[in-house]
Every structure is written in C-alpha cells, then in structure tokens.
C-alpha cells in the first residue's frame, strides 16, 4: 500500500521541529515515500529548501502550514491549488502583521473562512482543533467542530487525522475521531505528525522544547516528548500500525494526488513600471537608455550602439523592462535627494545599466561580459545591487520602496539565524543546567576563527577550557552542541535584499513584521528567493559611501573646495605612490594586511591595476593559487603563459591568470563551447553548497566539451581547478571595477584631504579593518593634529577646527566617550551654545542629562580640563569636583555657589592618563604607549616598525608593539597574521600553526608583545616569522585589537 506523509514539521517550526527539510527529504527517499507535505507552524519558511531538495530526489514536495487560530489549536492546512497557496500566504500575513511583539500570531475563524478556497484541512494532532474540542466538551463539541470545518472547507476538503505514537490517551482520542468521522462520512487520514527524520533526533526536539519554555531538561517534566515515535515512517510500518483502519493509510495517496500545487508554479510577477500614455515599458526604457547613453558615451560609437541594441532586445524578450525602470527610478530618487548611490555586482556588466546611471563602470570600454549579468537560457532574474551610504540615507531609500509599492508589495528578504559554535555552547549548557559562570566560560572558549584547524575540534576546545570530557554530563553536552550546529534558531532580516512584486507580494510568500519599526520581511532568505525566481534588489549600506559623502561636506566647509566624485582627477601619481607603498590604512578594500602585503608587488600605476588588486585578494584566486603567479608575472619574475592558445583573448589582460568570474565563463565558452548562459549556470553550480549532483553533471559536460576541442587531460584539470576554486568566492570584473572606483576615491580623499577624510571615517565607524585607535595614530603619523575630547569644544561627531597657527586640526567628538548617550551629549552642546560652562558644578547643573558616571568619565579622559576660566584643571582636579557636584547639598544649600578648596589629589601620571584614555575613549590622542618605552627597547635591541622595513631578508630581528589585528584567514592554512603597532608604524608578524599551539595564550590574549624571528623581506614586503613571543609590560591601557574571528 502506498503511503504519503502529509503532516511533517521541519526545524523551521522554530524550536519544535528537529530536522532540516533536506534531512526529511533524504529520509523519505530512504523509506520510498513518493511525496511529503511540510506543514511548518504559521509559515512556509522551510518550503523552498524542501522543494529544492525534493526535486533532486524525485519526491513531490507538497506545501502547507499549521495555522494558529485564536479560538484554539493549530489547523493543519494543505495547499491543493495556487489559489489555495495564495490564500494561505495571505492568511498568515494578516495574522503576522497584526500580532503584537512577542505574542503568537493567530488568525480568526472568520478569516479562515475567507481564505479557505484551495485549502484542505486536517483535524490535527494533540494541538489540532479536534483534540481541543474533545478535551473541552467531549463528543458534542467534536461534532460541532466537524460541522464548522465542513461549512468552511466543504465536506470534500476535511480529513479526520489519526496519529499513533504509542500513547493511550492519543488512542482514546483516535477512537473518538473515528466515531465522529463515520458519523459525518468524513475520510480518515493516517499521518505520523513528523517532527524529526530519525528517532535519535527526539533528543534535539526535547532540547528545543526546553529552550522554548525556558526550562532545564531535568525540570521540564511532561513538556518533553513521551517517546521517540514522531519520525519519518515507511508505508509498511504505517500499514501495520493502522491495520484496523486501512483506509486511513490508503487515503494519504489519494489526497496527495489531489494536491496539485508545488512551488514550481509560484506565480510570481515583477511589478510593472507606470509609463506615460502612448508608451510601453520597453519603449520608455529604450528612450531613457539612449538618453543616458548620449551623456555617458560621447559619441555613441557603433560598438556601443550594437551592444545597447543587443541588451535592449534581450531585456524586451525576457520582459524585464519593468525591473530596469524600477531600479532606474530608485537611482533617480537618490539623485533628487542627494544620496550617493552606485550599482555593484554583475549589473556593471550591462551597458544599459551604465547608460541609466545605475552603475559607474563602462562595460564596453572594459570589455565586460554581458552574459554574466543576463542570459536568455539561464532562466534566472538578473541581480542588481545598489551601494548606498549606511545609516539614514539607506533607510530613506528603503522606506521609499515601501511607500511606492505598498507594505504588502515589497519586503526585505529574511536571514535565517542558525546555531553556531558559541550560541550552541551557551544554550545547550543552559538546558543541561550549567551555572551562568560556566556558561560564560564555555561560550567564550568556542573558537570562532575564520580558519578552522582540523584538529581544533570542539572536543579539543572543551578540554582546553578545563572541561572533563569523561564526565557523563559533559559528554552529553558536547554531543548536543555538535548536533544542533546549523539548525535554524530564528529569523532575522537580511541586511539589504528587497523583494518587490506585481500585485501583492503576500500572495507569493507570507510577510512578517521585522524587529525594526516600519520594516516587513518575507519568510525566505535570499538563496530561497533566488531558487524560486523571486527578483530582488539589494540596497546595501556601505560605510565608505557614507564616509565619502561626509568627507565632501567637510571639504566644502573647511577647505572651501567642491569635490565631484564622478570627475576626480584620474591616475594621479601621488595617489598611486601612496597606494604602492601600502600606506593604505582607512582606504576602501585595500587596507587589509593581505592587501598591504600584495600592493608593493602588484605595483598599481593606473585604474585597471586597482581593479585587479581588489579582485586579487579574494578566497577564489588565493585558493586557486592564482594570486602568486599573477604577482610574479606582474614583476616580470615569471613568463606569461596560457593553458591553451585559444584562451589568450580571455586571459591576456590578466597575464594568463584568471582573476575575474567573467574570465572563467569565457574559459568555459571557449574550451567547451558553452553558451553564455550555460557558463553562468556552471559558475553557480560550482559555487553552490546545496547542489553536489548538479555540479558533477556540469563538470562532466565541461570536460566532454574540452575533450571534443582537443584539450589535454592536464589542461582540462587546470581549467576545472580555475573554475571550481573561483565559484562564488571571486569578484566579477565589473564588481571589482565598481569597488576600485570607491577605493580610488577613498585614497584620493585621504591623500589630499586627510583631516576631512579621517573625521568622516571616525564618524562612520564601525567599518573597515582597523580600530579608531589605529586610524588616529596613522593620521597623526601623516601630520594631522588630533585634539582630545573637550566639553568646551567637542561636538557629538568628530569635527575640524583651526589651531593657533591656522592649521586644520581634528577634534575628537563626544561620540567616543564611553557610555555617553547621543541625547545627553547633544543637550550639553546645546547648553554650551547658550553660554560657556564655567565650572564642573555649572556643567552638572545645566546639563542634568549627564549622569555621575558620564561626568566622571569626562573628567577621567581630560574633557573637563578647560572648564575653569581661571586656570587649567588637571584630570583629578576635575574628578574631585565631579564627586562634589553630583552630591546635592539639599534645598538649604541650593543656589549657593561655594568655592571649593584646591583638590588634594595628585596629577595623573603618563601611565594613568593612557589607561584613562583607552578606557574612556578606546584611543589616545597623545603619544603612542610604545613611545614612552623606546629608549629601554632600543637598549634591548628591539627594532621599531620603520627600522624593521629596512632589514634584509633572512636576518634575525626582534620587534615589539601593541597588537592591533589578529587574523587567521580561511585561505592561509592555519597561519595567523598579527599586526603590531608602535609610534613609527605597523609591522606584520607571521605565526605558524605549530607555534600558535605552543604559545596560544600570548598570541590570543596579550596586548603588548615582544616577538623575535626571521625577517622576510621580499619585494619591499616585510614580515617577521615568529620564533618566540613574550608578553610585554608596556602599559595597563586596554588597547583595542580588531580580531577577525
């Protein structure tokens, strides 16, 4: 007898289901089930992954959901038709958008009635409506419920559900249900109410129950499941279980055949753009494109004309004109509102996008491959990403989209948060009843480096922290931590992806309110949206865009110059000189340690060199071993060769080494006669973690094509390696070019307008690679004077002011004072504008928003030193006064200005000031802590960062410094790169995995270190390969390190 499981929940019924949709499908395949229906609670979160996995296994993925109803119970609803699916999505959306925060979204029975068409209702399990009715008022209520369901869904669309999990009370309910079904002539339906794929996963379900109910395993009692029977069962097992009611099993096949709808027929349509009368969207787009092209290309050459015609014809054919016009509309909105915007990603391969002003790169001039962006045979929507200044401007654009397409016409894509090392360690510990102290300790030690040492297992981490793995409780803990990895925990919103739909988006996918007010999210993440062909526009916040915009404003105000980013002077030698020297702290994309290490070798002298530079330091080229050959060829140390002479046109620009995604598409097209679309499909398949099978199929096709074209086996392997190492981890050339434009602009502003650029950078932090402490020290080394926070001068933001000699100086903003709220700081600035403060007491009285802690912190960092009109206070004078100012003398003494005697406290010494600066602001504007110890260090034979740069290769040396970054890149085979900073600059230290294992504490925890080792000085790139490392007692200051975990 055939059996179909029609009531299954995945882990997307958050904290209830214990298996991923893919695991359920795999189990179905093992048990020879032809179909399965996924009914997650109040959503179709797991449906796309379930659909895609089922498609691979040849299983029919049926859609449905359990919908919570206000009158009680969760109604299992199966989707029979597209109308049914639309009704289900709308029903869930209505409930979700209405629900208050932290409450369960429920629909009303009346709403259910309005959305019943195309849906089939089951009577459910112990949480279902029938169980609720029977528990409330026995058979009478049960009869009433069935009458109600029949009136809502029709008698053909109501099935009385039976489940058997070896539970007496469930069986007595089953007998009542069978009686009622026979009375009303309703069909019976056997399901297993699946919550996990295999019995062993019941443990995870129990753990989730505890997390959901905030209990421990040993206090959860009967909240936990009674047994492990809610797994995927085969037909034979179910037939045996329901031997007394065989029709219940038989009906599953019949009902399954009635469920015609799958996500294949989603019915999504991108919105139409409103055009003037007499125009079609195509004609309107054509006009806007030619208008733009005439401005961009002067003159419009034949090649440009041909490319534009080709692109416009394809856009017309694929009916995508509306999409381009909608993105163009967003660009227009940004321009009208003075918001910097730039398209990135593969959109920059399109001449139409360039002409419409969406992107800033000329794809024809750069000979970019249009098929990477759009192709006919790929059957996928194009993807346009827009970079916007992070913060309010980006929010303005998002709200414009909502306003224009309606709350139910547009939404952000979701982001599925899953259990990772740290969250798993913490929550599993809670469930097992570990105390808070142990939990903090455990979650702190779980390694989160990007690169994972194969030996650095969770077992090893636990042992390192002092946990005894032979203790039974710890063994269970470790086992649970490992098993919950990657299971979904909850949904959040994606940083920028927006989905827009013609008509109502809520008929395509349910919508939910996001945590941020005014935002709505769809229930699917960006990969799910892409898999199901939902078109999205990524509105990404880019900190550097905000920096550029703020810099332009500051330059206008303080330098009296107007900078136009679109017309920056190109190829300025001084800018490239700076870049070549890797003096790039704060510059977009080219500031990381790896970039700095390759800049002198790549030796960029023109814009295209920057494009390759941006693309060079990416996991794809690094793991594909393309970075090193390219740099050697750049330096002339290696001849330029090609895998095959037919590939010369594709690889010539990058010296025979593929660096961009477009190049690998071209390789496939040339070597194996792939069409543009096929090549793009190859790239996606190779990069997709979810489609191993698809990857193998395409690789076979690729090799077959190469063989047919006479490529040797060795060359084939080389080309397959090129392509597979790239996959999604390399940049498209267009994207690299877009980023290179921003990189050049940031370099230009830093070199020419250091004060404005640094202030903007500090005001938009967090962003980039370095902490503000490093940015400030770098700016100071470049001659910028940086003044500390001062309540008599500082604004909330860092600002520029003229010093006594008329030089531009950067004044640190109040935003850098620890724990000081913006509102309090602005109240202070507002009061200061009315009249200057004359004492600490005056400040405390007139700015009551400042708490005692705020005032004490301001005093500690020296921000109150200039408060007294008579004499400059020292920090402890101010602290002495703060304590008095915050202790009110009572009404009797109110208004009496009592002059205080001088403070008996001694001044802070240098060390104390450093500690206070770093504690209070995270940086110091005074000397670098290392500078105070230079004489001693010199006596010890320690080299400064500048001196290290001049040492020859292979020489022994010792350097000392403050650790400012620690990085263990995924591509560096476990090597850790550490950057040390002293008063002269930065030096880079290489730490091998063996050395790390022996010196873990010093590498990970020390703020100042002394490192000895061998100098590696190759092509003016200097590293010190560590042979010994020791902590150094320079200062107790809490200097920050930006560690890339």
């Amino acid at each position, binding site marked *: 007898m055939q059996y179909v499981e029609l009531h299954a929940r995945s882990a997307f019924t958050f904290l209830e289901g214990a298996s991923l949709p893919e695991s359920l499908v795999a189990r179905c395949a093992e048990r020879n089930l032809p179909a399965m229906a996924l009914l997650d609670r109040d959503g179709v979160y797991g449906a796309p992954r379930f659909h895609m996995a089922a498609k691979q296994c040849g299983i029919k993925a049926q859609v449905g959901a359990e919908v919570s109803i206000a009158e009680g119970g969760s109604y299992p609803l199966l989707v029979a038709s597209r109308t049914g699916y639309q009704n289900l999505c709308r029903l869930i959306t209505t409930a979700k958008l209405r629900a208050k925060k932290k409450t369960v979204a429920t629909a009303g029975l009346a709403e259910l009635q309005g959305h019943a068409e195309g849906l089939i209702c089951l009577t459910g399990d112990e949480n279902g409506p029938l169980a609720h009715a029977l528990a409330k008022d026995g058979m009478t209520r049960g009869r009433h419920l069935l009458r109600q369901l029949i009136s809502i869904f029709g008698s053909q669309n109501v099935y009385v559900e039976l489940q058997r999990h070896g539970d007496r009370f469930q069986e007595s309910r089953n007998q009542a249900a069978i009686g009622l079904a026979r009375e009303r002539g309703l069909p019976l339906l056997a399901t297993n109410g699946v919550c996990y794929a295999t019995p062993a996963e019941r443990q995870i379900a129990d753990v989730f129950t505890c997390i959901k109910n905030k209990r421990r395993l040993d206090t959860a009692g009967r909240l936990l499941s009674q047994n492990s029977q809610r797994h995927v069962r085969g037909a034979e097992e179910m037939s045996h279980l329901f031997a007394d009611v065989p029709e219940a099993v038989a009906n599953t096949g019949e009902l399954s055949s009635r469920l015609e709808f799958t996500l294949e027929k989603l019915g999504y349509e991108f919105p139409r753009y409103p055009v003037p009368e007499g125009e079609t969207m195509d004609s309107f787009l054509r006009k806007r494109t030619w208008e733009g092209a005439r401005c961009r290309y002067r003159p419009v050459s034949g090649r440009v004309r041909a490319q534009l015609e080709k692109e416009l014809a394809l856009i017309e054919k694929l009916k995508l004109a509306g999409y381009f016009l909608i993105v163009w509309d967003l660009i227009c909105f940004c321009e009208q509102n003075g918001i910097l915007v730039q398209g990135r990603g593969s959109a920059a391969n399109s001449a139409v996008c360039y002409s419409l002003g969406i992107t800033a790169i000329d794809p024809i001039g750069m000979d970019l491959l249009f098929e990477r962006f759009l192709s006919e045979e790929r059957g996928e929507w194009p993807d346009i990403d827009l970079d916007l200044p992070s913060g309010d401007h980006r929010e303005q654009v998002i709200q414009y989209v909502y306003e224009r397409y309606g709350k139910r016409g547009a939404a952000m894509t979701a982001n599925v948060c899953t259990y990772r090392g740290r969250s798993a360690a913490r929550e599993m510990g809670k469930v097992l009843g570990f105390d808070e102290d142990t939990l903090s*300790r455990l979650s702190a030690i779980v390694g989160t480096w990007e690169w994972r040492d194969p030996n650095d297992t969770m077992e090893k981490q636990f042992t390192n922290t002092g946990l005894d793995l032979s203790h039974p409780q710890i063994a269970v803990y470790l086992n649970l931590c490992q098993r919950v990895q990657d299971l979904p925990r909850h949904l959040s919103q994606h940083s920028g992806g927006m989905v827009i739909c013609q008509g109502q988006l809520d008929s395509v996918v349910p919508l939910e309110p996001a945590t941020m007010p005014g935002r709505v999210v769809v229930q699917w993440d960006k990969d799910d949206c892409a898999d199901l062909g939902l078109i999205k526009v990524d509105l990404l916040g880019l900190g550097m865009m905000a920096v550029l915009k703020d810099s332009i404003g500051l330059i206008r105000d303080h330098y009296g110059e107007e900078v136009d980013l679109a017309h920056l002077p190109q190829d300025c030698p001084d800018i490239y000189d700076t870049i070549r020297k890797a003096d790039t702290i704060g510059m977009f994309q080219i500031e990381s340690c790896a970039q700095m290490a390759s800049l002198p070798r790549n030796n960029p002298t023109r814009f295209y060199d920057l494009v390759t530079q941006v693309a060079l330091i990416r996991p794809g080229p690094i793991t594909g071993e393309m970075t090193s050959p390219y740099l050697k060829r750049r330096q002339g140390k290696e001849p330029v060769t090609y895998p095959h002479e037919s590939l010369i046109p594709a690889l010539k620009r990058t010296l025979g080494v593929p660096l961009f995604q477009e190049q690998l598409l071209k390789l496939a097209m040339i070597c194996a006669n792939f069409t543009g679309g096929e090549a793009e499909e190859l790239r996606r398949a190779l990069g997709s973690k979810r489609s191993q099978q698809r990857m193998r199929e395409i690789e076979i096709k690729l090799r077959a094509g190469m063989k047919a074209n006479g490529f040797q086996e060795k060359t084939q392997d080389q080309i397959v390696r090129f392509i597979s190492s790239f996959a999604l981890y390399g940049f498209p050339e267009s994207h690299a070019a877009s980023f290179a434009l921003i990189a050049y602009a940031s370099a230009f502003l830093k070199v020419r307008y250091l004060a404005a650029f640094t202030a903007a950078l500090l005001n938009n932090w967090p962003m980039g690679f370095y902490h503000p402490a490093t940015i400030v020290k770098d700016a100071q080394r470049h001659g910028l004077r940086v003044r500390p926070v001062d309540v008599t001068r500082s604004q909330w933001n860092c600002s520029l002011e003229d010093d006594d000699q008329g030089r531009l100086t950067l004044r640190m903003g109040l935003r850098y004072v620890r724990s000081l709220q913006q509102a309090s700081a602005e109240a202070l600035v507002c009061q200061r504008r009315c009249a200057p403060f004359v004492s600490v007491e005056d400040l405390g009285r007139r700015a009551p928003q400042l708490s005692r802690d705020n005032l004490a912190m301001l005093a*500690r960092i020296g921000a109150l030193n200039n408060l007294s009109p008579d004499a400059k206070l020292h920090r402890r004078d101010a602290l002495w006064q703060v304590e008095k100012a915050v202790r009110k003398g009572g009404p009797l003494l109110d208004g009496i200005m009592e002059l205080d005697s001088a403070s008996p406290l001694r001044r802070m010494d240098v060390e104390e000031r450093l500690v206070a600066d770093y504690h209070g602001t995270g940086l110091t504007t005074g000397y670098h802590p290392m500078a105070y110890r230079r004489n001693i260090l010199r006596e010890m034979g320690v080299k400064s960062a500048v001196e290290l740069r001049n040492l020859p290769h292979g020489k022994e040396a010792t350097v000392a410094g403050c650790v400012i970054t620690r990085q263990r890149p995924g591509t560096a085979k476990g090597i850790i790169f550490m950057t040390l900073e002293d008063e002269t600059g930065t030096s880079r230290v290489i730490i091998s995995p063996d050395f790390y294992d022996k010196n873990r504490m010093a590498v990970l925890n020390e703020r100042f270190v002394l490192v000895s080792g061998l100098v590696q000085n190759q092509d003016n790139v200097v590293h010190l390969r560590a042979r010994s490392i020791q902590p150094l007692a320079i200062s107790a200051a809490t200097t920050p390190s930006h560690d890339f975990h």
Partner: protein
Amino acid sequence: MFACLLVPDFPVQAALLLEAKDEAELLRRSPIAVLDGPSNLPRVIALNDAARNVGIEVGMTKLQVETCGGVYLRKRSVDHEDAAQAALLECASAFSPRVESTCPGTAILDLTGTEKLFGSPEITACKITVSARQIGLHLRIAIAANPDTAMYAARGFAGIAIIPVGDEAKILAPLPVDILPATPELLEVLESWGIHTFKSFAALPSIALTERLGQQGLALQKLAQGRTSRPLKPIEPTPDFIGNHEFEDPIETLEFLTFDLNRVLKEICDQLVAQSLATNELRLTLDLEVRQTRDGKDGEQYKHHWKLPVPTQDRNMLFTLLRLDLERNTFSAPIKKLTIEAVPVKPRMAQGNLFAPPSPEAEKLEITLARIRGVVGSLDAEGISCVGSPQILDTHKSRTFAVQSFSSSVETYSPPAVIPTLALRIFRPALETSVEFTGKAPHFVRLWKKHRRVLAASGPWCSSGNWWNETAAWAREEWDVALKTFEGVGYYRIYLDRVRRQWFVEGVFD
C-alpha cells in the same frame, strides 16, 4: 590591646588539619589547591604559596591545575573549615577569656590584663604562634590598641606585627585600600582619584571627603587612620541542652525507662524555658548492653531523632512523641544509658492567620502522625515514606510519586490533568515475568508461576525519558492484557523495561 589571629589561605589550612602531622607538614611545603563548585566544573578557591609559585591561580579548573602537574588537590569541606575555626578559637581562648570569632579564619582576642600571665605583647604573640602550630595552624598575628587596626594589620603583614599606640596610621600606611570593606563603587572612585594606599586615603581632608563620599567614606578613612574604636563581640559558651541518665542495672521494661525519660526531659525543658528558648529537633540515644550472639555483636546503640514542625517547650508533647516511638520499637538488648539532646531555637512568636481555614494544631498533628507511624511503620518495601501526602511527579514515567510530610499549612489541591478511568492496583515491587509473543502481540504471560494465555492485548504504549542522564535513563513498552486465570479473566498491565531488558507485571486492573 587586641590581638588578631589570622589563618592565611584558610581553606587550605583547614584541609591540612585532617592530615597526619608529618603528612601535613610535607603537604604544606608542596603546591596544594582547594577546589569547590559544581561537580562538572570544580574550580580552585584557595591555594598555598607553593601552588602560586607554580602558576596556579584562583578560578582555574581542575583539569587546568592537573596540567601543571605535582599539585595536590583537595575538595572544599565546610565541616573541615568549621573544625579549623573551632580549633582557632580554642587556641585563642587559652590566652584570653574574651575572644571574637570575626570571620572564617580570623579571631580577635582582648589581651587586656594578660601581661602578667603571658608577658609582653611580643611574647604573647610568640606563645600564641607556638600554640597554634601545635594544632597545625600557621598564623599571622597583629596586636594593636583597637580590634580593627589589629585585623587590617594581620591582613596586610605576614608574621607578627605589634602596633604601638599612636603609630597606627604610620604602620598601616602602605596597606592597599582594596582590603577595606568599601563598596565596589566607592573603591572605583578612590581608584580614579589615584588613592591606592591607606596612607594616601588617610591624608585626604576629612570634611571635603565627607562632602564627596558621605559618612561611609569618613568611616573608612578612620579605619585607614587606625582611629576606630569598637567593642569586641566575644563568643559566649552556648549552653548545651543535653540530659542523660545511666542506669545502675540495665533495664528491660519500658515502664522504668519512661520514668527517667520524663525526668531528663523535664530538666531540658526547664533549661530551655530559663533561656527563653524552645526546640524543634530532639535526639534520643539509648546505649544498649552489648551481647555476643552467634552472628556477632548485638546491641550497642539505638538512635532516633525528630524534626518538629514548630519550636516547642512543651514537655508533655515531647514526652508523648518519645514514648510512642519507644512503644513501637523492640530492642535487642537491655538499656544501659539514656541521652536526650534538644537543639535550641527561638520560640515561635507568630500569631495564627485570621483568614486561614481552621487546621489542627501543629503539635497535636505531630503526635497523631507519630501514632500512625506506630501502626503502619515509617517506610515501605521500596523505601518510600508511608506517612505523608503523595505528590505525583512531573514525568512521563508511570507510578512515579513522592510522599511528602504533612504540614500544618493549608495547600490548595490541584487534580491531576488526566484522571484514569480504570483503577490499577500496583504491585510493589513489580513482579518479574516472562512473555511469549505471536507476531507483534503477547501470547502468553507468566503470572504466579503459571503461563497464562493472553485473550486480548492493547499496546504497545511506549515511553522513555532522562536520556541525558546515563544512570537515570529509562524506557519501557507497556501492554494492557486480558489473561485467562482460574477465576476467569484477569486484566493486567505488563511492561518491558528496555534498559534492563526484563518483563514485569506492573499491576492488576480492578
């Protein structure tokens, strides 16, 4: 003058007190750390200097300490610490009648007038040191004109410190301020002012300091200046409420025993009344005559103790309780000696709740319960208390309940969520059995040593739980069966214990 005796690394020294003398001396020179905390992650809470020298720190886990090698580990014992504190106080009491138990590991004694007995403060301190060493405690001793100064000096200085009158501030000057009993917030203020030592704190102008840190700040400053004065709170001997009677000839009848029992109880209750105390715990010990039997020794001692719901001084009530217990028991040998000990507590002062429903008096309830225990016994065959109120535990496991003692407070009764429709009479303990299957259903069940045919069966009903606890994990498969018996048909519940792989008959349906 006051002397402060301080035991550094008190938990370590307390742990060493139990070791043999030679062993303790050896250990004292070796690295040793005391661990405490949850069993899955014990941490170091105290250690000696040798352990510090090898890099051990407070807060390390057991495994981390073990990686250092050669470190002796001891688990913290509050009992050992209490014993060590008692030893310290006893040592101190030999030198002064006025001894204060300031905190664990610290005692302060008043040396006023002891010079003629023990000599100068220096000599007294040396004598105390020697005396303490003899009982295995290594002390720091400080002698000063006031108790607080002596205490801080002992905390700050090793060995013996004598602080002459008038030199308090000077001698305390180098001590760090964080040993003062200040709040973390106040310590943070002092830290920000750059005040790290008693000296710099003592030097601040008092009025300005009071304006900023209030009375608390001023009080702390006086401590730092060594200018405080407080009365000592000497320990006073607590009267013991123990009475005993040794019989000239061992007695064998209850009648003689109750007479003396009543008399001893009266003495104890009179003492309690005189001290305005009551008791809520009574311990009875009967020393029995030792007899040699074939199986070995018999007799020796009978002990019993009662925890009462409310404190009482009522001799009659206590006597009735004891008598009921004795009537219930038979002794294997004649009684030589009777001892009664009452644990003193403050008498109950609370007034009954006006709005609470009437309930029996706690004392009368306790006597009634004792009578019931006399009839039904205290514990059943499975070790579950027989007298009390059954409480169903929140678990899927069947027949899991606990018996809690009755209390005089009124509790609301909440019925169980599911009320079974059939009554199951449970066998305690369950009967081991064997089951034969035909297909997937049971066919024969062995019951009362005979194979019974299964006429009908319902099941399997599966449940399992506690999978996270190796020792408490359970899993069972139940069947409800109708068995053919001599009387006709009997309905039973059988189950397979999946952990023990054994079938049982759990009970019979009425």
